[in-house]
């Protein structure tokens, strides 16, 4: 049994954890300043608002496009073309040997 050293990786994880703690502490310290807190909240509200607006625009486009698209596409169907249930194959347990035999 061999063992690959993970000491450096562990040190990296510790550094990462310390970094995250410092970032959280820094964020708390910055947010304790009312002006910064207000600016941050404004920014968050702006971003959330922008996401909602983009979502509404997409929904609006879908709403506007739906009926013309429905009218333009029509119900497509094939007349006089035979299909068989034997063509529909279920996905079951398989292996690389099965694939070779195909």
């Amino acid at each position: 049994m061999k063992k690959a050293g993970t000491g450096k990786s562990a040190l990296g994880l510790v550094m990462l954890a310390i970094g995250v703690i410092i970032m959280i502490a820094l964020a708390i310290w910055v947010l304790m300043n009312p002006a910064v807190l207000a600016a941050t909240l404004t920014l968050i509200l702006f971003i959330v608002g922008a996401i909602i607006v983009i979502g509404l625009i997409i929904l609006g486009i879908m709403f506007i496009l739906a009926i013309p698209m429905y009218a333009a596409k029509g119900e497509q169907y094939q007349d006089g073309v035979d299909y068989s249930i034997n063509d529909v194959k279920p996905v079951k347990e398989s292996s690389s040997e099965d694939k070779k035999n195909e």
Partner: protein
Amino acid sequence: MRYTITGDNLQFVNIELTPDEEFHSVAGAMAYMTGNMRMEAVMEGGLMSGLKRSLSGSSLFLLKYRPQNSTGVVGLGGKVPGKILDIDVGKGAWIVQKTGYLGAQPTVKLDMAFQKKIGAAFFGGEGFILQKLSGSGMAFVGACGDLNVVELKAGEQYKVSTANAVAWEDTVSYDISAAGGIKTSLFGGEGLFVTTLTGPGKIVIQSMTLQDLANALIPYLPSNNN
């Protein structure tokens, strides 16, 4: 590379690798591996490829598996109750629904694909961004529910409920069609559109989408009131 796909509705794909072979999977797919197997997270193709993978529903980092001077086995599982499908990408490129990619041989290229038709992108149920598998080798795709595979001849068409198309060969034409008249559209339960898949090429259809499963479970979720 040898593999088996085992299980019924929560399947495993078990992959046997010789010392000179590698396998890649999406992050979080590994269920088990033998003691001689090592895995490493790699940002295959660099940051841009990683970001493209993330946007197409895969992971920023891929996991690379390699046995250490001997033959080893790694087992992957899907993230939802469903089936795993093996695809020989060497026979032709495939388009796969977002989050479908599970793993593949390193010779398989995973890329982002876009819906080309605006109607299909908005109303096809699969969204704008899909996954494209090209190159050569075996790839594995996981999806919710049971799966059916149909090989369409040129001009043959299947109409599929929106979002129930899991994967299709690059040669298959993906579009939408009206579900029917006003009665069918309002009371048929399919909405205004169905997806049309026109051959030639193979298509894979699922019996249940993850959204269907979530909707079926919502009434039974415990709440604070009862």
